[in-house]
């Protein structure tokens, strides 16, 4: 029997962090997604312990400011891509606005830390969502193109192919055959 489960990353992460921090008897308060204010300063060993506890689960304690900013940029982008508001604004303006920095500055920091560009990241996220929409929601390419603000299906297909190297239809075909194989 096939089940499609959608999960809310926010809830999971927050709950998890809470658990883990409570294990270490740390008092904290959440400031935002991925942002925690600890009541007291941690010792190096405690910080290491925390990192080791969180590490296996994919949680990284980000230490420097630039990394924090990059993480915020990423979060903002993900939020942008995954909301269904069909506002046709430019992502650059949105990010600059949301994070209170100039787009140029954001761009530089991002490239410095990640060695790749914001645009690239946006594209990757959009394609990722497109993949999800294709497989889970079984939407047509036209619908997806519209939802993700592409000017045409061809535009979406081209970007898909440029990013992954295969066409959307080929991708769908492969995923379907993979599932058949597993049966």
């Amino acid at each position: 029997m096939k089940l499609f489960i959608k999960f809310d990353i926010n809830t999971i992460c927050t709950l998890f962090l809470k658990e883990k921090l409570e294990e270490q008897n740390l008092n904290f308060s959440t400031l935002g997604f991925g942002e925690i204010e600890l009541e007291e300063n941690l010792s190096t060993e405690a910080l290491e312990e925390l990192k080791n506890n969180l590490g296996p689960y994919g949680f990284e304690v980000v230490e420097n400011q630039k990394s924090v900013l990059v993480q915020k940029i990423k979060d903002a982008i993900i939020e942008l891509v995954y909301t269904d508001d069909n506002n046709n604004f430019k992502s650059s303006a949105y990010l600059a606005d949301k994070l209170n920095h100039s787009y140029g500055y954001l761009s530089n920091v991002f490239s410095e830390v990640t060695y790749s560009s914001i645009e690239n990241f946006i594209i990757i996220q959009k394609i990722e969502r497109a993949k999800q929409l294709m497989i889970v929601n079984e939407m047509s390419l036209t619908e997806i193109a519209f939802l993700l603000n592409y000017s045409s299906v061809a535009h979406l297909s081209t970007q898909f192919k440029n990013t992954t190297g295969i066409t959307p239809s080929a991708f769908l075909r492969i995923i379907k055959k993979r599932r058949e194989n597993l049966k």
Partner: protein
Amino acid sequence: MKWIPKFNSSNYLRVIFIIAIFILLFLSSIAYKHNRDLNESSKLLMHTYEINIELERLMSAIKDAETGQRGFMITRNNRFLAPYLYSRDKVNTSFISLKKLTANNPQQKKNLDKLFKLIIQRYVSFENCLKYSAPETYDKRKLDNHMFGGRILMENIRFKVDEMKDIEKVFLEKSLKRYDEEISLGPVFSISLFLAALTFILLAYRQISKDLESLKVYNKKLLISSGLMAESEAIGKFSTWQWDLETDKIDYSDNQFRLLGVQPNIFVPNKDSFMDFVHPDDQEAIAASMEGIINNEELPFIYYKIIQPNNEIRYFKSTGKLLVDQQGSKILLGINFDITDEHLLNIKLQERNNELEKSNKELASFNHVASHDLQEPLRKIQTFISRVSDADKAVMSDSAKEYIVKIETSANRMRVLIDDLLLFSKTNTTKKEFIKSDLNELLENAKSELAVIIDEQNGILQVDNLPKLHVIPYQIEQLFINLIGNSLKYSQPGIAPKINITCEKILSNEYPELMDQPFKKFYKIMFADNGMGFDPQFKENIFVLFQRLHSKTDYPGTGIGLAICKKIVENHKGYITADSEPGRGSVFTVFLPE
């Protein structure tokens, strides 16, 4: 079989004959009756005649008596008494006859009695006359009385006789009339019946002779047919046999014997004698099929071998069908074909086919493997060349640098060649899966493959709506890539390439090159460009493998691209043609069946 006529005339004839016989019987019964009637009437005549004669005899006897009496009375000579005495006997005799003759007629009997009484009275009168005329007892008055009385009696007798005669006459007339009536019908009736019978017999005769004629004709045809049949059996190396399923009798045609390798009619065919000829490998199957014939009353196609007496093995194919003939008996008509020649040919053909297939496979895999395996060292060459960094080049001599460049160029050329060869062999060897595909999609894919070049050259593509067809998708895509790529490659220098792709549905009769597939619908897809074109005398040449119209330095290419296009189109049972005018562009036309 149209030449077996319907002889229901046998029924027809039967009916006619029965009618005729009945008529004859009827006629003969009429004739018999007629005869009998004639007999009766003549008997009647005789009867009346006899009565008359007797009556006349009676009369004459009495007259004799009277004459005698008169004579005696006149002459008193005893000689005259003799007739008078004899007359009495005559009268008695006649009377006895008359009594017999009138036995069946009561009226006449009465009359006869009366007559008898009269005659007795006459004779009494005679006696009296004699008595009273004798001189001894002469009495004139009594004599006159009795004489007179005698005369009157005579008259009465005569009267009575005439009366009796009349009665007889009337009676005769009546009877004769009756017979007449009966008989008069007879001849007419008989003649007409006779004529009818004659007509029937003539009809029957006509029918019989007609039937006979037809029989003769059909017989002749039959003979000719039989002859032809036997001939054709001999020529066509087949034979027929008949198996009467009820009597289990089997009949072979002459050729059946010959096919088995023996003289015609050398033995009486039956199931077992046939088995002797069957090859041991097939005996079981043949036995089973014989069972099948008996039980299912049919013989589906069966293939087997026989061994002729001279030990030659022949391959046979037999089948049979149940026929019910006119008498209703079930006959299995069997046909044998000696397919030895075809069989051996088939085997040879199959062997050849297998060889060809094998060599094809070897060739294809050789092609594939060669291209594939050639890629490895080539790739290494190119990669190592690319590893020669600028720093390295800086310390090389000029000639060394030049050589490196030349090596690179050659390697690149080889790469292109191998890629194209690989593509060509792929067009052949990979499994050909036809999927219903939207050609527009495939064209889009081709365009995106060539996107970079199209962009570089500012190429414009104008595309009609293409249909959805059953094709091998990646091959059609390759076809588009090659054709469009060519148009881009051979564009006119300085002029942006423009490619017009149009599509229309056509019927193969309109196009001579499609003539070997008449009345089929095709899609005609035309790729028209505004490139440099080529000399139209080469329009067939360009599809030949490795044929090029330009040197590789002018225009890089391998001469495989269009050959691949042709192969792809052929795989889809279509056609490709090209035409051009130098300087005015070229048109490539692809015909794909519906």
